[in-house]
């Protein structure tokens, strides 16, 4: 595979395997030199390497198995855009700006340590909550769930998350869940559920009204209580769980468990 090499354009939507080399479409040579990694907005005509791909001499080297995806560049430029591999992995890798659900594991001085499912725990400052000041500390206990987003996420540093947006508002973030249930699904399913106009959510909404919080790290929190509603309640709850878990392997790439 590596010897022959496939054209990246032709391969979009196809299964790619680690070690495959994707040849880039005939782009001006200078472009290759100015390759940029990371989700920052790419200038017109530039190429963006998403998760699962790495730049090599011949073109793009695939490092994960999954379906190759491509997004054309925002402008009218040709031969650029973003390529990435869509797979059903369960291990979360922090990405800046991702909304995630974390579990507070420790209170250390003025920061909280938060488990986000990544290889390292994230840190969360006690000032990073809406309305928090040095005097007015948020009431966070070990084991609580927090919904927030990453402001620092790179591979060499401890990720850092906040529960406020750039203007200091909570915007839905903060401590969630003294009740309810947290469960985990694959990252692909989460992406699917968060896609605009997701059909599963709509179908479920037709069955019964519900409310869930989805974290990009594969965690779903369902706030409903066991006791608050009648007997068949938990059937719904575990029904939701089972549904997601059952769907999980089939969604997303559709080919990977």
């Amino acid at each position, binding site marked *: 595979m590596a010897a022959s090499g496939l054209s990246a354009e032709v391969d979009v939507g196809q299964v790619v395997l680690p070690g495959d080399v994707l040849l880039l479409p005939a782009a001006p040579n200078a472009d290759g030199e100015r390759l940029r990694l990371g989700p920052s907005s790419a200038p017109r005509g530039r190429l963006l390497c998403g998760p699962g791909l790495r730049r090599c001499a011949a073109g793009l080297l695939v490092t994960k198995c999954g379906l190759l995806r491509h*997004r054309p560049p925002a402008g009218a430029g040709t031969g650029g855009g973003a390529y990435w591999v869509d797979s059903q992995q369960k291990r979360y890798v922090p990405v800046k700006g991702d*909304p995630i659900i974390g579990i507070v594991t420790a209170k250390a001085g003025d920061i909280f340590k938060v488990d986000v499912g990544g290889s390292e725990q994230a840190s969360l400052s006690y000032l990073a909550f809406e309305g928090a000041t040095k005097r007015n500390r948020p009431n966070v206990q070990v084991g609580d769930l927090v919904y927030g987003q990453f402001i620092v996420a790179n591979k060499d540093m401890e990720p850092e998350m906040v529960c406020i947006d750039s203007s200091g508002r909570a915007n839905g973030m903060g401590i969630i869940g003294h009740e*309810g249930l947290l469960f985990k699904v694959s990252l692909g399913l989460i992406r699917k559920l*968060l*896609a605009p106009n997701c059909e599963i959510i709509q179908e479920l909404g037709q069955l019964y009204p519900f409310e869930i919080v989805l974290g990009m790290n594969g965690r779903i929190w369902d706030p409903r209580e*066991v006791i608050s509603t009648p007997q068949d309640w938990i059937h719904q709850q575990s029904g939701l769980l*089972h549904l997601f878990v059952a769907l999980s392997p089939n969604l997303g790439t*559709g*080919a*990977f468990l």
Partner: protein
Amino acid sequence: MKETPLSNCEKRFLLRAIEERKRLDGRQSYDYRNVRVSFGTDYGCCVVELGKTRVLGQVSCELVAPKPNRATEGILFFNLELSPMASPAFELGRQSELLVKLNRLLERCLRNSKCIDTESLCVVAGEKVWQIRVDLHLLNHDGNIIDAASIAAIVALCHFRRPDISVQGEEITVYTPEERDPVPLSIHHMPICVSFAFFKQGTYLLVDPSEREERVMDGLLVIAMNKHHEICTIQSSGGIMLLKDQVLRCSKITGVKVAEITELIQKALENDRKVRKEGGKCGFAESIPNQKITAFKMERAPVDANDVEEQAEEIIMKADPPLDVFAKPILWTPGTAQIGEGVENSWGELEESERGEEEDDDNDPDTLEDPKMEMEDVSIVSKTKKDDTIVLSDSEEEEVVILKPEKVPKKTRTPTSSKQENSSKKVSNKKRKKKRVSY
């Protein structure tokens, strides 16, 4: 790596659910998870699955000098290992408290109950005996390791064959499997552990706790028993006070569970023996259900193409044209809203390609779950899953049509060219439409 902590809300939820006598996986309090036994190509190699907990058992033997105080007895050695593969919480090469406890319990269950005739392992008294070594590896951890490990150990021992030997004077000959058939160990009985988790100081009792349940339990009672209702080991941990009635009730439940599991093991062994005798294929590769990449290539089945067009129409009708970016907040349905910009996939929109798959996804869980295993009782979990998917399709306008495509392989709905068929379809289409009106 540290293990994922259990959040407060999960703890609370689990305990409340247990108070209402419900479990997350839909089991009843006294239900055991599905047990699945599969054998490797070699004798004495097996994988036991208890729900999602998996244990690999491997038995090996060696000729060694006996212990001086037991000159005529073979040596049994058990070793359970918890690798980081099973759970990130386990570290390699570290004797954790849990590991020591499990190993000790296994030894008590299998060696001290004298289920293996150690005297038959003696070759020359005081000089050479067989040492039987049972290695158990935890491959995946989803609670109740000890039960899975004890089943794996006894199954591997039952399946194991040691090389035949003959003693002539001072000379011991060990025959290869080609020269003489290997001989099985002599096993008196099969002790099997059954775990009980206690919650709220022993008020609530669950059989076969899952990993999450184990994390919130107050105490654990493990009873090892054989099918003759003889208790081989009993161990209570966690420091709870148990009443006599509770222990008696647990031992009764154990008796029932052990009988079921023993029967299952014997069936599995019998099956394997038959396959080997007939020279059929055996080994893990044969026993793994089709959960691989190619599993989505469904088996070819003759397809009734009569309602293909209807279905296509149905799908088109159901599918909304893809919308552009939403103004926020978005109200999906009453009660479900979306706020904030973070909810969009930062790597682009994937719906176009997946819209088509959606229809198939409804059916796939069933085929995936399809139990290929012969000796299992029907799984409750998969039943509930099935129910769910059906309920999901019930919400459609027309339940009849949605339930049908279960047999239709995906993406083979090619437009048929023959006019005859088309006309007949149109007729049925009309009927359908009429029906719709009447709804």
